[in-house]
């Protein structure tokens, strides 16, 4: 990690954003009709409400790398000839500011899926062109449990880490890409001390708050690949899944859910092939010619948590496919979530 660090007054945040937006597209947490989302920042639009105070955006930062719906190819027919048009989007460089530590970790989890062979071209293209600027969480909430995955909200990571402390935004490049971007901002950023008292205090404060959160001692120790069969057969799934209404909220707000469906849309004069997020909670998830392998909600419900806590770690050196962002805790219509499941299924080890 680079030991160099910069800062800029929080009041001058606009200057920083404008400078960033001058070099590439910039995405910020912006309020839209009452909800905060990562949206493209437009320096000319004075009505935009940038919300650096919002802890989590409703949709996670994964949207920028793995959008909900994207075109793959179009087919056009003329007579007996079918023309295949590659209309995948090629992105230009972009930066995303305000990613929380949990979302930043989610990219590593997605990378293991999309960047392993065969590489997902669209995802790789976006990863190569995207610079991630994280922001430490000054006010974590009760739904946060990133600590359970070894994430330190006070050291958020990414290409560049940022903090808000003492009325300033602190800026520390971490990767070569982060260094390059920082150089382009020499005019707006001022040099600062890495061990500035105010910054150190802020980090300490964040860790103190995290230690007070109700879920900070959540343990996932018992979710070991060796216990796969035992966990799979647990009688608890039935009662836990009773509350599940089979919607896709948890999967669509999740920063690590990665399943997608490839579909064709008949435009009336050709076909548009696209891919869009899929949800294991849906009745037609992994529908095949013979039908669907999971015919009941309890099986679909179990799939989601087995994937996150057992299957994924079994294939990825024990890394869980959850980052503890707490979105599903806040958004589930029935308030059924991964923490309740982990505590119920994980057995005594978690109590």
């Amino acid at each position, binding site marked *: 990690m680079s030991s160099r660090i910069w800062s800029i007054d929080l009041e001058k945040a606009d200057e920083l954003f404008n400078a960033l937006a001058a070099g590439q597209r910039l995405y910020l947490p912006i309020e*839209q*009709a*009452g*909800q905060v*989302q990562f949206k493209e920042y437009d320096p000319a639009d004075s009505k935009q409400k940038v919300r650096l105070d919002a*802890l989590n955006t*409703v*949709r996670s930062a994964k949207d920028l790398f793995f959008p*909900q*719906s994207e075109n793959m190819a179009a087919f056009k027919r003329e007579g007996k000839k079918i023309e295949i048009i590659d209309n995948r989007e090629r992105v230009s460089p972009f930066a995303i500011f305000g990613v929380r530590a949990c979302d930043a970790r989610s990219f590593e989890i997605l990378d293991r899926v999309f960047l392993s062979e065969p590489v997902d071209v669209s995802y790789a293209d976006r990863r190569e062109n995207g610079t991630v600027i994280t922001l430490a969480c000054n*006010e*974590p*909430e*009760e739904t946060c449990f990133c600590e359970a995955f070894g994430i330190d909200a006070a050291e958020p990571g990414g290409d560049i880490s940022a903090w808000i402390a003492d009325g300033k935004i602190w800026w520390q490049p971490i990767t070569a890409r982060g260094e390059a971007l920082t150089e382009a901002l020499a005019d707006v950023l001022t040099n600062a001390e890495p061990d500035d008292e105010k910054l150190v205090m802020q980090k300490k404060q964040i860790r103190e*708050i995290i230690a*007070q*959160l*109700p*879920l900070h001692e959540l343990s996932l120790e018992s979710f070991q690949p060796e216990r796969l069969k035992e966990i799979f057969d647990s009688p608890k799934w039935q*009662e836990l899944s*009773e*509350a599940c*209404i*089979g*919607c*896709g*909220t948890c*999967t*669509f*707000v999740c920063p690590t859910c990665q399943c997608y*469906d490839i*579909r064709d*849309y*008949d435009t009336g004069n050709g076909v548009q092939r*696209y891919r*869009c*997020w*899929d*949800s294991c909670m*849906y*009745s*037609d998830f992994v529908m095949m010619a013979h039908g669907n392998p999971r015919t009941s909600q309890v099986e679909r419900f179990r799939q989601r948590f087995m994937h996150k806590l057992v299957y994924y770690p079994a294939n990825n050196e024990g890394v869980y496919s959850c980052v503890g962002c707490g979105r599903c*805790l*806040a*958004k589930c*219509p*029935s*308030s*059924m*979530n991964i*923490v*309740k499941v982990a*505590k119920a299924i994980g057995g005594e080890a978690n109590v």
Partner: protein
Amino acid sequence: MQTNNRPVKEIAQEIFAENQAERILGWKRGEFFYDNSPAVFSAADELQEFVYDAFCGSNLSKFLVKEAAKEGRIAVLLKPCDRYSFNQLVKEHRIDKENVLPIEIDCDGMVDIDKVRALGIKGIKSISADGDQLTIETVYGQKNCSKEDVLLLKCQTCKDRTGGDRFALVREIEEMSSVERYEFWRSELSKCIRCNACRNVCPACTCEKCVFDNDKSGIANKANSDSFEESLYHMIRAFHVAGRCTDCGECSRVCPQGIPLHLINRKVIKDLNEFYGEYQAGADDSSVGPLTSYELDDVEPDIVMNRGGGR
């Protein structure tokens, strides 16, 4: 909370003690104090986790479609507003009434935790109530707010209490110009992530296979791949529940993006009331709904063109 001065939990215990039903559909205590989940209890000792407090906003009627079809009688706890959905489902033959023991329980308004959060109250540890005043303990210190301010939307215009005017916002939108209305809905509906929570929670949406899940329908999709699909989904959904929607407000409660979906349903209800006479879906379990009946002298469709409202 109590019903006829008896704690609801006691009523539940009595159901098992007197063998009135084999299972009880109620709410289970959550991880925090505000995230109670709907749950089925099948034995008296399971009732330890039973809870009924100001965070039991979810409407249990829809769960009966699945639960009442199972063997054995099921008791269900219905808040006054949930009763409407229950009646409507019985009317539509989606619930076998004989297999259900409906228990009406009192309710003095449910709290919307998102509204508490919207007040800037973060890191909530506990909430205690003293009359209308809520005291909230958070990791950032103690906060206060009035319960009236953080009530669920459906409770603010409660059908059983003289609440506010539920059509006020609908009227406001009607008065906008057509372009403003279009922009209002674009900015709201473009947030839609097509999670289907509004549909799956809706007690009026009980189709075995939804048209939006049916690949043969030509409009099935799992994402909004075009802005048109955002509008189509919500228009068709509102239309399909038109005349059957009891205005239970679950769609707006569950929307992760906070889209005021209830406004679409209320617009429909308001129109139905104005054009075809006052009607409350679910007020009873046998009357004929406004879109499955007609009068010889109904208004003509051009009333839409000729009446007031913004253009």
